[in-house]
């Protein structure tokens, strides 16, 4: 048995029956990394020693019985999540040597559940990007085709899970950064409702949009991870002050009687690849066969979402990233003549071009005299997008759409043209702007054999609906389980 191929639920089963040990499982994951990581580049930091120590502790807990489902499961986390004593770079040179003295809440919840963290995943610098090409360290390659990007910004997480380097991962999603790489890598990615999962210790990109979520091999695994990470955190004032449900209960749900909305603005979007459109049609058919009624709906302000997103997110980023100034921690440029020069040289050399671009964009959007026209207007668009969804969810249980207009593109293909890259976020940014949950679940392959995901979105705090639909679809579509050749 190739232990590294297991899903979380399969492994948890074997672990709880003591048929395998966490140490064996962890070693299997680590040697899988040794074998295929050079071809993929999904990690920035590996934590072999810490992982084995955690695995041994998990084995002790497992021996006692009654351990949590994640106990002993080797997994990775995106390098945007703070890990106490383990380098956390955010994919940036400016945090190259940053060792947080604290764990992100989601990380400490994983640790409390007995999970084994094997490493920190590569990502677009400060989660800004859709391809993981913006990492200051190295790009990540798509396990299905090494010439292609894995998506981003949680590209390292999605590629690691697709390549069986760890059983699952945590990513973060500000404008599609979990769902889009999950789609491109043929795995499951869930962006929870804003406020469902604590953001404490998630290095902020755009505070009003960021959410942490699971990237997994199955919908069931996503539910298991959600059980571990969701729920109120007193350290995050924006986290929902109510306890989370048992998300695995939602996996029993059925689709008959459900109404699923198909937004026409998405299906008519410019640049939607024929392969993707075809797979969408197939998905609709599958869902209808499962008993759901799929109806056309309208989200009329969709066309403004990307523009609003690329004002709000950079504006917040320009402020969130101001702290990286060389004064307290991280990279500092040498021998400045004065304070202003220290700031300038540190930030010019410490940040990559995309991060600098967005800081400038955001600074401009917040400037006196421009605020109303840019940030103010974008906030209004955001409200309109929320209302679009509210109207649709009055009659639909969920909305289905593609995740990305195309399958994974080639490395370097869109680097010269950031605008085209931004436009590929068109189907994912609305959920962030509205604060609603969305999931990407594999729905088939393009003619070139590249994975394509189906996006399901539901109303605020209705992750269970997503899981019900995704789980039923996953079983009926029969595409998960197919593995890339590495």
């Amino acid at each position: 048995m190739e232990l590294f191929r297991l899903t979380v639920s399969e492994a948890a089963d074997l672990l709880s029956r003591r048929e395998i040990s966490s140490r064996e499982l962890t070693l299997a994951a680590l040697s899988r990394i040794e074998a295929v990581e050079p071809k993929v580049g999904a990690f920035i930091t590996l934590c072999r020693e810490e992982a084995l120590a955690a695995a041994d502790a998990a084995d002790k807990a497992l021996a006692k019985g009654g351990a949590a489902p994640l106990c002993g499961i080797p997994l990775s986390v995106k390098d945007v999540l703070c890990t106490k004593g383990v380098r956390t770079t955010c994919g940036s040179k400016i945090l190259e040597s940053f060792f947080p003295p604290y764990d992100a809440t989601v990380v400490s919840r994983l640790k409390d559940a007995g999970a084994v963290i094997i490493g920190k995943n590569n990502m677009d610098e400060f989660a800004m990007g859709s391809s993981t090409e913006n990492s200051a360290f190295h790009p990540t390659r798509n396990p299905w085709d090494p010439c292609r990007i894995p998506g981003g910004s949680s590209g390292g997480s999605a590629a690691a899970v697709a390549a069986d380097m760890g059983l699952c991962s945590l990513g973060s999603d500000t404008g599609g950064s979990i769902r889009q790489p999950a789609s491109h890598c043929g795995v499951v990615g869930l962006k929870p409702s804003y406020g469902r999962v604590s953001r404490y210790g998630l290095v902020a990109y755009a505070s009003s949009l960021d959410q942490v979520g699971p990237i997994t091999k199955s919908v069931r695994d996503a539910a298991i991870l959600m059980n571990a990470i969701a729920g109120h955190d007193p350290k995050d004032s924006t986290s929902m002050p109510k306890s989370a449900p048992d998300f695995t209960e939602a996996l029993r749900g059925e689709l008959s009687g459900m109404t699923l909305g198909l937004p026409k603005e998405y299906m008519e979007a410019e640049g939607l690849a024929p392969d993707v459109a075809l797979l969408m049609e197939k998905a609709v058919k599958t869902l209808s066969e499962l008993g759901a009624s799929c109806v056309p709906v309208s989200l009329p302000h969709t066309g403004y979402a990307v523009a609003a997103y690329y004002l709000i997110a950079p504006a917040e980023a320009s402020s969130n990233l101001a702290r990286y100034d060389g004064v307290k921690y991280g990279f500092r440029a040498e021998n400045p003549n004065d304070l202003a020069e220290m700031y300038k040289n540190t930030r010019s050399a410490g940040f990559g071009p995309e991060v600098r671009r967005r800081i400038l964009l955001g600074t401009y959007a917040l400037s006196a005299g421009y605020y109303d026209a840019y940030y103010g207007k974008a906030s209004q668009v955001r409200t309109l997008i929320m209302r679009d969804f509210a109207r649709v969810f009055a009659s639909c249980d969920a909305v289905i759409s593609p995740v990305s207009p195309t399958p994974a593109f080639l490395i370097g293909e869109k680097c010269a043209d950031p605008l085209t890259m931004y436009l590929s976020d068109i189907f994912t940014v609305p959920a962030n702007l509205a604060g609603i949950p969305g999931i990407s679940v594999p729905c088939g392959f393009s003619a070139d054999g590249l994975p394509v995901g189906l996006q399901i979105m539901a109303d605020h705090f209705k992750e269970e609906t997503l899981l019900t639909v995704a789980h039923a679809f996953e079983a009926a579509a029969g595409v998960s389980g197919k593995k890339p050749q590495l």
Partner: protein
Amino acid sequence: MEFEAVIGLEVHAQLKTRSKIFCGCSTAFGAPPNTHVCPVCLGMPGVLPVLNKKAVDFAIMTSIATNCTVARESRFARKNYFYPDLPKNFQISMYELPLSEHGWLEIETAAGKKRVGITRIHMEEDAGKLVHDEFAPVSRVDLNRTGTPLMEIVSEPDMRTPEEAGAYLRKLHAILRYLDVCDGNMEEGSFRCDANVSIRPRGQEAFGTRAELKNMNSFKNVEKALAFEIARQTAVIEDGGRVVQETRLWDANAMKTLPMRGKEEAHDYRYFPEPDLLPLVVFPQWEEELKARLPELPDARKARFTSQYGLSDYDAGVLTSERELADFFEAVMASCKGEPKQAANWVTGALMGLLNARGLSISESPVSALALAALLTLLDSGVISGKIAKTVFEEMAETGKAPDVIVKEKGLVQVSDASVIEKAVEEVLAENPAEVTGYRGGKTKLMGFFVGAVMKKTRGKANPGLVNELLKKRLDA
């Protein structure tokens, strides 16, 4: 041409919470650098602010006490600027939607009573401190103060004289001290004041160009700086010049304001709503609960002092100007049976004289309220005379001994035994026959001389009333 000044004040008051506004670190003053810090106030990656409810309580209490309307919903906002004492390089403050607005305070000056408007009160976090090395070209950053809760209280430009500005500041200071929400220490910077001042021809509606004055660490300095600045601006205009809008620092040694060195950049703080904090919603019930818990405020206490104790407006005003002083007076009154007026005189006279001479605050008084009450009781019951009481008070201040102990040790008990005093009277009359003749011949002013002589003979212990009575009886006989 006659000019009048237009003055507005901005006060930054540190709120007296035990922990910081967005994290659990201590706000205690004077700890070794960077010991009261955590990832949140250090602005480390990924950390988030959590609002300290006590700080909001304090700011709401201040809003109520200054007649402001508390907003049902206010919002924290980020004020973005780079400085090494600001770890996040933005300050969490309030901008478009402050905590409260439209308040006022009543002040009293020689010119009479007047209302000064309060534009707004908002909450924000304090920055850290830079320590510049004297010998090397480096600066060190101490972030202990970072995140200390601050309240900014902005007045309307309603004041016309330095005296009014001083009265407004003292009143605001007293209110904060009464509420016990700020320790009000101007030297340590827990109560800071910036002033905006301009002048205009009397009768003109439009404001002149204003200067912003900073670096004034006492009420007196605020008044002096304003007086200097008003004179300076007047001279500039009278010489045909123009006042420039600028920030000026008060130099307390040179006794003048000077333009802040270095080029002043027009800051664009790029304010936007703080996404990490929810809008601050103050339910009416919350406000009502705090209102019910509000202590008696200076104006109300002053009114009560005049009605309950029959004190003059002036005495009541002095005694209630500081919460601790008023508390002290009431503690004295609670444990002595004497006249309130007498107690007030002792507190505002001897006691405050002593404190001023030694540079002490009322809470550091070497004579406790109980000890002073005991002294007044001795005086009231005739055990000692007023003159002796002064001596005993000085001794109390010096040694900290109880008044009855001092009286006993020094044998200062007042002599009210008529036979003892009569004997002294007889001796004095016998020793001064010429004065006796003079008195009887109509020089009644000599009575003072006889009283003094009798008192001297009894080493000041004779009951003055009795001395007078017996002398009169003997001389007029």
